[in-house]
């Protein structure tokens, strides 16, 4: 059902992890729907993305699109990172099954959410960047329970 590239990125995800004191962090998705992505960006003074890490709760495609999205923005300027669309992520993965296209949208949104966080922290405006749509903590905090 998945392309070899998707399987490769699922099995060997690139850039998994966290960045302490990240320049920007974005979390998108919803546990209710079964996928959440979080992207950490380390951005230098020249507005270049020096490092990027991700964590994802979700299916194989969700993991693979997060992994590919981090690869595509690493070493890029924040303006170049804005050009990394869900389509670019999908193409880089040799396509996704139709029911998984939303995963690539989520990856694009996660990058945007992290950039938004960076822009807010630094009081700058990034052209074309809008406030991220979803936040996992909206209305469902303290829902976790332990067994």
């Amino acid at each position, binding site marked *: 059902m998945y392309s070899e590239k998707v399987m490769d990125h699922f099995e060997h995800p690139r850039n998994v992890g966290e960045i302490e004191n990240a320049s920007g962090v974005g979390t998108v998705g919803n546990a209710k729907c079964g996928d959440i992505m979080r992207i950490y960006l380390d951005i230098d003074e020249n507005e270049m993305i020096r490092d990027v890490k991700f964590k994802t*709760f979700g299916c194989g495609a969700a993991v693979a699109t997060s992994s590919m999205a981090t690869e595509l923005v690493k070493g890029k300027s924040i303006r170049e990172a804005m050009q990394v669309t869900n389509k670019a992520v999908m193409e880089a993965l040799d396509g996704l099954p139709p029911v998984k296209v939303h995963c690539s949208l989520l990856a694009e949104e996660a990058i945007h959410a992290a950039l938004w966080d960076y822009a807010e922290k630094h009081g700058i405006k990034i052209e074309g960047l809008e406030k991220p749509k979803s936040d996992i903590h909206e209305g469902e905090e303290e829902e976790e329970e332990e067994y």
Partner: protein
Amino acid sequence: MEKLIYLDNAATTKTAPEVLEAMLPYFTENYGNPSSVYGFASKNKNAVNRQREIIADALGAKPEEIYFTAGGSEADNWALKAAAEAYEEKGRHIITTKIEHHAILHTGEYLEKRGFQVTYLNVDEDGMVSLKELKEAIRPDTILISVMFANNEIGTLEPIKEIGEIAHERGILFHTDAVQAFGQVPINVDECCIDMLSASGHKLNGPKGIGFLYIRKGVKIRSFIHGGAQERKRRAGTENVPGIIGLGAAAARAVRTMKERTAKEEELRDYLINRVLEEIPYCRLNGHRTKRLPNNANFSFQFIEGESLLIKLDRKGICGSSGSACTSGSLDPSHVLLAIGLPHETAHGSLRLTLGEDTEREDIDYVVDSLKEIVAGLRAMSPLYEDFIKKNQKGV
């Protein structure tokens, strides 16, 4: 061949060699149409009826009460639609549960669009129907109660005998979807007051594409497929003779091996359940701890998603299934897991493992060891787990 540990026997089973062997001549030399007059073909009618006897014996029923279908879904559709039609003058209310297979649920929705009212009973946290709620749901116009014998996802065995008694006391038809239970647990239609029962061949080491509906004598039920006189004119179409032979052979074999087979499966199932619950943190067993199918284990692992888990298991040669949305093609996880009260994110992280007669202890050990590694790996990249750990650290 690479290592393959098949723990998805609730999805389908391997056709047993003796079953295949029984079927083969009916594809080749005994290909005659059972309805034909000449002896070469008409002896197939006897062969088909022998299978009817085997299945009837397994249920404590009469051979003429067994109607062959193309599988469990057809049997479920037939039972609900044809009974609704036959009894609609008495009433248009049907009672079923929230955890039925879609063959029942979607048929219920279909009937609702045609003027019937359907009550979907809740279940408790173990997936058990409440007899009290059932009694309260019964109305003067209730014509049919349909409750599954055992749930296909979480394995819970419903109180079928008690439900049957309640139905019969009130003169209401009782149907049970026994697709998962037939051949796994003893069933007697008289003891359980069952009027109709659906079952399928491929869940008991028989072939796919064949099943049956038991219809108690005296139950008015319309024909489902109109045409020839096959199946006492109630289900037309030339009999799937090789399939029927296979179903009979599988049923005979399932009855013969049931005691020994299920004792072994239960022991391994409990070993699997205990190891997982003891060795993997933040997980739970779904379904009733003891009143469950001998071969079913269903877990939820917090902070991870089921499809990822299945792919990782597949890479280790382990076949299982999940109630996550991603495996169902919708955004919602399994209706069964939601009905037992799991939050969405926990339902997404579920795993069903259903053992088979070939499953060995070393397979279980390999599966548990693999699971521990995979669950830990997926949690390490889960933002939900990260939040949970950070919250705990702050809390200390």
